[in-house]
């Protein structure tokens, strides 16, 4: 059998490096593709003081799913405008600031969303605010440029406040809370 030349070995090595580089960037490439709408289940059995209308529960579920989709896309692409349709108040301002910091530092977070279990806790008597607790199944990947610096599968608890907008419910507050907080 003919012995491979040094030149052949070098070509082969370059090929491997190129393949590994592409593999390392796979999450980045996938993030360019639009995020899918995550699954959201809503339990409003113990909600009060205002009872929830069936249509409202459907809309809350839909709009919260869209909010997560928008947030994941916005954080992945540093696209502040993507937040407009689903966020308002402090949640929107905080996420906009986060995106500005991501742009400055080159760090960004990529969410792989495995679904949300929402429990509606409080619906104001006038119907102008709803508080929910979310148990989110997420895979969070943190990149510095193209370098993956941390990746983890987590179950996170969120406290959420949503308020009605003109044609949808908007996320006004979104905070992670420790497991024992509820």
């Amino acid at each position, binding site marked *: 059998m003919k012995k491979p030349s040094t030149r052949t070995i070098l070509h082969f090595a370059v090929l491997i490096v190129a393949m590994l580089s592409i593999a390392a960037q796979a999450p980045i490439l996938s993030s360019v593709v639009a995020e899918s709408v995550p699954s959201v289940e809503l339990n409003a059995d113990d909600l009060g003081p205002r009872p929830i209308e069936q249509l409202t529960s459907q809309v809350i579920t839909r709009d919260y799913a869209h909010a997560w989709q928008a947030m994941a896309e916005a954080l992945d692409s540093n696209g502040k405008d993507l937040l407009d349709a689903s966020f308002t108040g402090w949640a929107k301002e905080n996420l906009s600031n986060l995106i500005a910091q991501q742009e400055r530092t080159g760090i960004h977070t990529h969410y792989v969303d495995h679904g949300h279990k929402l429990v509606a806790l409080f619906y104001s008597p006038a119907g102008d605010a709803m508080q929910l607790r979310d148990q989110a199944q997420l895979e969070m990947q943190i990149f510095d440029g193209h370098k993956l*610096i941390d990746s983890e599968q987590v179950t996170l608890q969120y406290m959420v406040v949503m308020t009605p907008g003109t044609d949808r419910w908007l996320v006004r507050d979104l905070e992670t809370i420790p497991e024992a907080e509820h």
Partner: protein
Amino acid sequence: MRIRNAALFFTLLTLPGLAPGDEIHAPAQVVAGTSFSIASSGSGKATFYLIGPYSVRKRIVKTGGGIAVDGSEVEHAGRYSAVLCSDQCSTAHFYVRPAGASRISLLVHPSRVPVADSDAISAVAFVFDRFHNLDMAPETVDFKVMPKEGRELTQAISVENGVAWVRMTSGRKEGLSKIGAYVGKTSEIRVVQQVAADACNLHIRAEWVGHSFFVETAPVRDCSGNSVPDGTVVSFTKTDASGKTTVDVPIKKGIARVEMPVSGEAHITVASGVATGNELNVAGGR
């Protein structure tokens, strides 16, 4: 064989996390806005990342001691990841808790309400710390109703998940009434316009002015004695030989007044909403 070795070499070169690196240890919880230190092992320099719910920080730090985190870097409540990368990355997670009640977001509905209306006003208070984190620590919100005249009413409500709410009955006097929510030294106030309720005990009288016959009400008031607002409609109904005629008249300057042609005997009644008043029997032809 040389090919296989070269491939293995480049594979090892491109995969992170195979060489030993520095360790990082964060406290389980800290209070928002409070400076603290994250312990690190190793020696030399490394890149430190602090990834919060709404913030990202990156800097080069010296390992083997405490990594100082300024209070301004942990103002948002929630879960943080501290990542230290040299040859490989080490991660620690911790939670930032709200810093204690400092702000109240108060929703009061409606902004205009009839007097003495049971449970007509709802007030919802969201309690935040000074960094706008929802403060979920158990607290009590004092809701106060402060009418322009009359005594102040206070109701203490426990905060649940950062929210407290109450339903209140409007006062008996029309005018501006302040609705306040108080937590410690923090307060938020909204103003509700209390307006007279429906008319109560209508009273009418008739008079001739020249050849014209007029019917007018006494000043129209609700059951608490507040003047019913101008524009509220009062209906006068006349029944005479020609049949039944109803005239709707808005209150002006506190009374409703209408000219009614009368020939022969007539029976006149008055109503506003569900309230009715006295009835008049008059003889016309003047």
